[in-house]
């Protein structure tokens, strides 16, 4: 069953028409990168899929089931994990409480395992979310999403504002999630790092898909990469 498929999304914020017929798909075991400059509609695409900003037209399926118009918790309950832009951790809750917030779904991730995988979070267990550094918050947001035991994980700009070392850590986790059998949909400003990690890539511009194909092919097209990377807010190399 295809983890995620969105077809012909037309999404609006009030009167402004943001997505114009966006179709994307995440197949089983894939890491898919969703690229594009600021304001291209990447976050809106993710929000449309999650049911946070339901599309006016088009359909979203998660694991074959039509979820268009369903509230986010129903989409999540099917096994769609979501790490929002800006992490959105609960600053008024402790690290431990943040991790106990998600609904229970059977799977490999337990609280104990999360602390094992993210030892820094174990150290800061009793701290309030608001007391964490940006990197720790990102780890917390990812761990929190993983505790839902998602079969597909959506990450919205997980490297935003983080030091390169921590970004490497984040990307390592993304790889690990895939190795354990989940699929990944990744929105990234770091074009080079993202296409190095992903199997396939989509490029959005002005709310339309303007490129779709193997990440390798996109990475090989240096002119395209440079154009997109140059337009991004952050550019640097991961060095691997």
């Amino acid at each position: 069953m295809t983890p995620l498929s969105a077809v012909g999304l037309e999404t609006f914020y009030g009167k402004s028409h943001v997505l114009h017929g966006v179709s994307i798909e995440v197949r089983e075991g894939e890491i898919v990168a969703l690229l594009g400059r600021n304001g291209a509609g990447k976050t809106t695409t993710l929000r449309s899929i999650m049911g946070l900003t339901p599309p006016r037209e088009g359909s979203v399926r998660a694991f074959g089931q039509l979820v268009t118009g369903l509230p986010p918790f129903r989409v999540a309950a099917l096994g769609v994990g979501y790490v929002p832009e800006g992490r959105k951790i609960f600053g008024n809750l402790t690290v431990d409480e943040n991790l106990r917030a998600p609904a229970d779904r059977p799977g490999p991730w337990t609280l104990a395992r999360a602390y094992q995988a993210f030892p820094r979070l174990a150290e800061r267990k009793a701290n309030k979310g608001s007391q964490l550094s940006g990197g720790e918050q990102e780890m917390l947001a990812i761990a929190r999403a993983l505790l839902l035991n998602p079969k597909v994980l959506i990450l919205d700009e997980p490297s935003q504002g983080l030091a390169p070392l921590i970004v490497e850590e984040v990307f390592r986790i993304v790889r690990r999630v895939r190795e354990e059998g989940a699929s990944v949909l990744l929105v990234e400003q770091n074009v080079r790092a993202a296409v190095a990690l992903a199997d396939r890539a989509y490029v959005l511009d002005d709310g339309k898909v303007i490129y779709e194909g193997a990440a390798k092919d996109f990475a090989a097209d240096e002119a395209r990469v440079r154009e997109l990377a140059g337009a991004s807010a952050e550019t640097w190399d991961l060095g691997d």
Partner: protein
Amino acid sequence: MIQLVLFGVFNGLIVGAFYALMAIGLSLILNLSGVINFAHGGFLALGGYLAYSLAPTIGFWGALLIAPLITAAIGLLVERLLVRPLYGRDPLYSLLLTFGLAFIFQDGLRTIWGAQSVPFSPPAAMMSPLSAQLFFLTGYRLFMMALVAIAVGGLFYVLGWTRLGLRIRAGTRDLETLSTLGVDVRVLRNLNFGLGIYLAGLAGVLAAGQLGLSPTMGDGLIMPSFVSIIVGGLGSLVGTLLGGLLIGVASGLAAVFFPSAQEAVIYVMMVAVLLARPRGLLGEEGRVH
């Protein structure tokens, strides 16, 4: 003199405890659902009347246990059927709804139980003063204070130490993100509403034993309850508790020493607190619904 001060303080604490129970329930609902429940006083009166009707069959203690639960159940139903469809709309809609509900409650109570006040008595043994010196201390009043403390303590336990509680706190901060974690936020809001109404129902039963019953008994409590929330600081339940007790004591003392200022003192306090601390005593930085 000391005796008079004690009298004022103690009366104030009793009234303040009612304000706090009301205000904490209002706060819970406001924080998670963004609804200002003007019908809260109606639920309080309903709790009192239910106890009044139940007491002859199941006794005072049974009524004290059951009436708030029935009130809460009605609260769950009201949230599910009337309030829920208005989430995500202009707050004016829910404001109008609860405002209208407040009138419906009043007229409903009047229709069922009559417009006249009716007496409701706790066991007689609890109503006599404990000593002649402290004539205002009755067993019932002490019991009432203890019960309010237990109820508030229980609520803080639920919020602080249970999964339901942490989700309520998380949802208060960011309901959207909580929903993406698979948490059924509709059920959460429903339960939270019920929790708030339970406290109103409990306050109603206790108030009935102290002040007697009338369809409008909640009216005098609702404005001071809003003031408690503002004085304590929006978003802080501990602040709300403090705010309730504080303005209760202030009005209790005013009742003894400046009876004519008994009502005004509440608002004077609110102005004073807001001038010194615009977010209230324990208000959070920059978070207003």
